């Protein structure tokens, strides 16, 4: 664990990408092979089976620290990370243990078969033997979620450096359904013809938001446009007579969307499609809200399948007849995709994301204005000759989203943040006028600068009217412009609406409270865009 803790400290102690990559590359060169493999697994979101519940973990930690459980909970609320909270409030450890990462992972796996009392003893002993950082990492093995500022991109770069191989190849090798229990370092990283797992997806190519006028992209004839759909990105892999559906977050979501079992009836084996998973009914494409009913459902009822049927609105072809065609130009892939999906019957769970034809950038700007009517968030611009790259890359693909909707609202409640915002007020509730009353309608957490958060925090401290647990009611005095991507009817909110991606676009210091928007304004937006 000491070597892994050293790696963690090097990564966590620096804000510089080069330092992090170098530390990781060193680790991938000299750490024991199984530790390396587990490290790749942990940093790509794979984790060992949970050895115990976090409820038990909290109880055992409070007991070891000699503190009441409520105090641990309060501390956790402020620190924002259970593994860190426990590591900090236990009595200082000895840091005497020299076992490696794999040892501790295996030991944690083995205690899932012992009695609860023995499990507690094991964890208490582990805490006593580990230093604070090691203890934090040990706790992370149990609680999961190694988000420590190492993106998939950084890790693949480090692996490429350590092994002398190509970055894109590394990215592809790490995709898919493997765990350290089912593969080895050699098989995953080095083997020449790695017995490629049939389910393995390609790394998604991700676009940046367009930050200039599209004119700056050059002649329009070099570009293709299509709607930017408001669903979830998915990759459908059809190989060896099976189908696998992957989300952008590299989650296998095949079982959530049983519709795609039939895809194989319409397109040949050896096909990989990139597209948007959307609810599509007789009335056409539906908003994200309709899809939300389907997300996260493990069992899908017949009724749900009838009410909210999904399709893959395909916009790219990555593999054709078992051949990786990602280095073909987009225009070519697109032609093949259109051929593949031509004349599909209505009941196929696949459809082509239609091209949006345009002559000039001005034409396209006009078309973009109609995105909301097309149930889209805006447009995607793709360079006609672009290959399908891995990860987020600038230059060839751009999102050209609609401007968000906005409303001016009054801050009425404030709550302090957790984790990196532990000592600032960052979570606010906003209201609009209904006659002389302020009706809360949304919360927002982001969009202000550190300086503004600091300023509003000092103000909240001085202007608290009442406290309800961690929530403070503040004097209604400040107006903020709230930007959001969509608006829906909601029965759970007093105001009757729910916003999508609300954030603080601007602090309207120039606006008196009386000039904030009203509930009627919100209702009008709901009528127009809901």
């Amino acid at each position, binding site marked *: 664990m000491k070597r892994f803790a050293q790696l963690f400290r090097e990564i966590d102690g620096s804000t510089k990408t080069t330092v992090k990559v170098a530390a990781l590359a060193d680790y991938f060169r000299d750490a024991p092979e199984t530790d390396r493999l587990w490290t790749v697994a942990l940093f790509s979101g794979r984790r060992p089976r949970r050895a115990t519940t976090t409820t038990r973990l909290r109880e055992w930690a409070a007991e070891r620290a000699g503190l009441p459980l409520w105090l641990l909970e309060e501390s956790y609320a402020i620190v924002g990370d259970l593994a*860190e909270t426990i590591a900090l409030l236990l009595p200082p450890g000895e840091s005497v243990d020299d076992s490696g990462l794999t040892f501790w992972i295996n030991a944690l796996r083995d205690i899932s078969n012992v009695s609860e009392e023995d499990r507690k003893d094991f964890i208490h002993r582990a805490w006593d033997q580990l230093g604070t950082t090691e203890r934090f990492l040990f706790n992370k093995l149990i609680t999961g979620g190694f988000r420590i500022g190492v993106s998939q991109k950084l890790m693949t770069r480090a692996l490429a450096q350590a092994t002398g191989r190509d970055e894109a190849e590394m990215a592809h090798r790490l995709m898919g359904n493997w765990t350290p229990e089912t593969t080895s370092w050699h098989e995953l990283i080095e083997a020449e013809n790695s017995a490629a797992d049939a389910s393995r997806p390609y790394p998604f190519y991700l676009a940046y938001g367009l930050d200039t006028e599209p004119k700056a992209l050059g002649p329009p004839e070099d570009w293709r446009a299509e709607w930017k759909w408001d669903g979830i990105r998915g990759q459908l892999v059809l190989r060896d007579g099976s189908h696998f559906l992957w989300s952008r977050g590299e989650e296998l979501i095949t079982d959530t969307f049983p519709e795609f079992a039939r895809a194989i009836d319409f397109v040949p084996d050896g096909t990989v499609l990139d597209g948007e998973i959307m609810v599509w009914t007789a009335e056409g494409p539906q908003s994200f809200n309709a899809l939300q009913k389907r997300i996260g459902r493990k069992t899908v009822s017949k009724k749900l399948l009838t009410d909210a049927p999904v399709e893959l609105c395909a916009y790219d072809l990555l593999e054709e007849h078992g051949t990786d065609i990602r280095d073909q130009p987009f225009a070519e892939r697109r032609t093949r995709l259109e051929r593949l999906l031509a004349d599909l019957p209505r009941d196929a769970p696949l459809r082509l994301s239609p091209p949006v034809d345009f002559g000039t950038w001005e034409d396209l700007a006009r078309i973009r204005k109609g995105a909301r009517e097309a149930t889209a968030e805006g447009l995607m611009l793709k360079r006609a000759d672009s290959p399908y790259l891995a990860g987020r890359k600038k230059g060839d693909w751009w999102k050209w989203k609609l401007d968000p909707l906005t409303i001016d609202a009054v801050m009425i409640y404030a709550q302090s943040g957790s*984790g990196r*915002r532990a*000592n600032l007020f960052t979570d606010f509730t906003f209201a609009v006028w209904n006659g002389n009353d302020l009706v809360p309608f949304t919360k927002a957490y982001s969009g202000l600068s550190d*300086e503004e958060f*600091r300023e509003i925090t000092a103000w909240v*401290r*001085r202007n608290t009217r009442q*406290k309800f647990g961690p929530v403070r009611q503040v004097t209604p005095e400040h107006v903020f412009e709230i930007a959001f991507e969509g608006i829906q009817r909601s029965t759970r909110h007093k105001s009757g609406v729910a916003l999508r991606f609300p954030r603080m676009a601007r602090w309207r210091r120039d606006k008196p409270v009386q000039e904030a928007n009203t509930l009627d304004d919100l209702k009008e937006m709901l009528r127009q865009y809901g």
Partner: protein
Amino acid sequence: MTRDPVLTFTDRGIFCPAGGFFVDPWRPVDRALITHGHADHARPGHARYLATEAAAPVLHHRLGDITLETVAYGATLRIGDALVSFHPAGHVPGSAQIRIEVAGEVWVVSGDYKVVADGLSEPFEPVRCHSFITESTFGLPVFRWPTQADVAARLNQWWRESVAEGVTPVLGAYSLGKAQRLLAMLDPAIGPILTHGAVESTTEVLRRQGYALPDTVHVTPETKGTDHPGALVLAPPSALGSTWARRFGKVSGGFASGWMQLRGVRRRRAVDRGFVISDHADWTGLLWAIEQTGAENIYVTHGYTDVFTRYLNDSGWNAAVVRTEYEGETTESESAE
């Protein structure tokens, strides 16, 4: 007959009816007793001030021409019907707890304090009392400070490594207290220590007073980054990443604060190195100090007031939250320390 309590909590600050004075008030008053020179405790606009002799030069430096009476640590003054004395709080040079006795009942206002000696500030002395007013800036069990020797070792190692890598270490710290404590922890054998004007002026005041501080070089508009090879730069936190710091070329940013104990805060500051060092007591320090006073009644001011108060009540004290406008140690601003 009911008597006024020794101290009452008003919207202008902590008030002593028997003596007719306030302690660290946040609105202008006639007579203010000041625990220490930080901006949230020593505010401008009072008619008369009273503080320790050791705190006086900084108060004059920060507040200008004020009417300031001074008193030695431990000496007792009579103000109205109250007996008043100042005792070291260990927070920053010159800082004090204020003991107030009225008709045999003793209250102590501790201001900000820490219980471990930092080698510069007059070390904290527990004062027996019936009622104790304590801060709770770091009143959660996750705050436990490493020893000053450990932090000093890490600090000097960072300085050496940065110099070896050809980058300039720039350390952010508040200009009164933290900056001087860090100065005293640095090893001048490694190289010269450069200071931002905000740090230098306070340091000079304390140096003239006789606090043992190493030599420093004041960075002026004419100073070039290349003038002092191997140097470490000490500046207010706001100077990190500013145009002022640009003259030093490639830098490694460091920040010293108790908040650096939390990974989340460290990441938000986005500094290369966080040093866990605070002029406020950690969890064990707060509990130790409270224990030492022998007080039955504990009033909890700025910090994690609700949580800390509940814990004290659960543990057998008579504790209550008091709302003040003190800010403790913030991670953001220079004004509040």
